[in-house]
């Protein structure tokens, strides 16, 4: 009835498809926000009704339980739950970093081996990939853990090398380096060596572009990287000594213990992830047009030079995106360590800590945030590498 009295603009407001779209989007946004608000509110309401403590103040409380591996100083009786969180975080990162490095190296080798003209190598690679890719990772972790524990002797019958490295079912025990005053100069020497290696390779590339002459960059770089810190070590009067492990009572005292859980976990994760990386590498190499390889061959380049200078740089563009995924998977799969008692973030924080404190919501949120941040950082980093590769290749 009143429609005729409405100003024409208001009619247009609802009838124009553009405005309608905006209105409906705003409406659905409001509904989504209301829903989230409702659920969050509901949660807090219920938690409060049941008298469950909330908030993050528990992070300051003393944890009071033992942890079998810690990269920072951790004391059973005085360290807080925040320390536990950091210990778990670092242990997860340790597995992630070592696992990614090993899986990448192994994956690259197997991937190249898969395409080898040598029958034995290519079939062995195939068998490796098909075997380890098709067994669930949790089973592999348990398998390696049982292998590690079953194969190794008890502390009193340790396998020892030079009386300083011991292997037994409590882990791999190596001398623990002690850094005395003056060891800082060695670190400085190492950093300087790294910088000079970067400049050296830039210079060698330039020279190669200008004159075509090769320079043995790898050998010289290795020499600088090892030689410089070593020279400084003797110049500074050998400031690094070692704390040698010794059998006392039940276990070894002193030294640095690499626990069997860590070994098993890294073994399982890198072997498993390497299969996927190998397939990505194979796909990448096969994606390089065969003409490229033939052209390089006709120039008289050697097989390994072709691989390194012609094929891999182009293949990397195809390899990197799927490999990012595998790195993310490796980090997330490390949470399965809870099955063998490796103290990473899920075991320590959303396991033990959750049970001692009982604040499930806060603790699970923090644990989820850790994995979210890890994943975002890894993918940003590799996207950046990917972007650089793309420009370089063209």
């Amino acid at each position, binding site marked *: 009835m009143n429609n005729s009295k409405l100003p024409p603009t208001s009619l247009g407001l609802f009838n124009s498809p553009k405005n309608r779209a905006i209105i409906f989007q705003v409406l659905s946004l409001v509904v989504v926000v209301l829903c989230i608000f409702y659920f969050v509110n509901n949660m807090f309401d219920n938690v409060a009704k*049941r*008298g*469950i403590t909330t908030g993050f103040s528990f992070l300051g409380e003393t944890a009071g339980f033992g942890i079998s591996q810690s990269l920072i100083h951790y004391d059973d009786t005085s360290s807080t739950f925040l320390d536990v969180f950091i210990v778990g975080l670092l242990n997860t990162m340790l597995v992630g970093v070592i696992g990614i490095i090993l899986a990448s190296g192994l994956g690259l080798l197997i991937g190249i081996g898969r395409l080898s003209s040598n029958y034995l190598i290519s079939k062995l690679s195939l068998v490796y990939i098909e075997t380890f890719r098709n067994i669930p990772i949790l089973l592999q972790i348990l398998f390696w853990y049982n292998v590690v*524990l079953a194969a190794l002797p008890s502390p009193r019958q340790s396998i020892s090398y030079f009386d300083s490295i011991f292997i037994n*079912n409590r882990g791999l025990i190596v001398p623990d380096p002690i850094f005395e005053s003056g060891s800082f100069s060695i670190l400085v020497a190492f950093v300087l060596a790294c910088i000079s290696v970067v400049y050296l390779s830039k210079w060698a590339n330039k020279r190669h572009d200008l004159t075509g002459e090769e320079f043995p960059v790898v050998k010289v770089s290795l020499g600088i990287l090892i030689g410089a810190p070593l020279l400084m070590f003797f110049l500074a009067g050998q400031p690094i000594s070692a704390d040698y492990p010794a059998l006392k009572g039940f276990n070894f005292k002193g030294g640095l213990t690499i626990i069997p859980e860590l070994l098993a976990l890294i073994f399982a994760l890198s072997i498993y992830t390497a299969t996927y990386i190998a397939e990505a590498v194979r796909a990448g190499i096969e994606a390089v047009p065969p003409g490229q390889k033939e052209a390089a061959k006709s120039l008289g380049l050697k097989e390994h030079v072709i691989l390194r200078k012609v094929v891999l740089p182009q293949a990397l563009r195809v390899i990197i995106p799927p490999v990012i995924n595998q790195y993310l998977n490796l980090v997330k799969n490390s949470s399965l360590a809870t099955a063998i008692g490796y103290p990473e973030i899920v075991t320590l924080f959303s*396991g033990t800590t959750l049970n001692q404190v009982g604040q499930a919501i806060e603790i699970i949120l923090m644990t989820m945030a850790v994995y979210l941040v890890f994943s975002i950082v890894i993918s940003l980093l590799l996207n950046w590498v990917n972007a650089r590769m793309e420009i370089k290749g063209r």
Partner: protein
Amino acid sequence: MKVTKIALILGLASTLPNLVNAATLEQVIKKGVLNCGVSTGIPGFSATDSKGVWKGIDVDFCRSVATAVLGDASKVKYIPLTAKERFTALQSGEIDLLSRASTWTATRDTSLGLNFAGVNYYDGQGFLVKKEIGVTSAKELDGASFCIQAGTTTELNLTDYFKSNNMEYKAVTFDTSGQTIDAFKKGRCDAVTSDASQLYGLRIKLDDPKSAVVLPDIISKEPLGPVVRQGDDEWFNVVRWSLFATLEAEELGVTSSNVDKQLKSSNPSVKRLLGVTGKAGENLGLKSDWAYQIVKQVGNYEEMFDNNVGKNSPLNIDRGLNNLWNKGGLMYAMPIR
């Protein structure tokens, strides 16, 4: 139309929180089954036998409560939980009652939104070691590695004990007691530490139980008992008095075999317990024969203890602290009157 539909959905959704908080007793009666949280396998407390039937003193307690509420000991749904899952499962309403060898501590009682309804087993933390290492006392365990189950009071007690004795140790923590004893078997650690009663149970799981011993040292107090959600007093009462009923029955000499005869007993205490006189059941919101049914279908505390952990079981644990108050133990039921 659409508006009414949306309003209906929103209206339904807004009743959700009330559902979660509704009285547990009514819910259990409505469902006709008691969701009882038990362990993933602690022999003597809660574990499945070769036929897949749940057995144990904690399981019997679940059955007692089901009998009191529903009149049928078989109306229990057992939900196996690891140590670290148990309290969250209770808080979230997944289970109605947690009967899983849980230690009553101040933190758990006050900050988790839970209440301990009593103690059905007085325990203490001990150590299980291999005979070959030749240790006879916990004080000789300096430097040893321990296999522990994550999320237990055991982890904390161990730290306290070694700190106060100026000794060192290494802890290797696992999710379930099965993994813990597995790692011990394979030599990952020198000793397993847990509640002493559980150690006897775990020892049976070894290939050669005689190759390991439980040390005599007890380093902590571990009062184990059933747990319910805080703020539901009616349900709390039902659980607490179900426990008292089993103790009272033992004290009065009422057993599953003589309970029918005892109905004609002239002892006023027995009469009140079995609902011949008095209104104990009614006041709890239960039938008047609630305690009679518990004793008839499940048994009194002595029967539960002896059959699961005591002299009629492979564990063969002494009553000790778990004897009645008038026989030198700590078990004491408040009078039913």
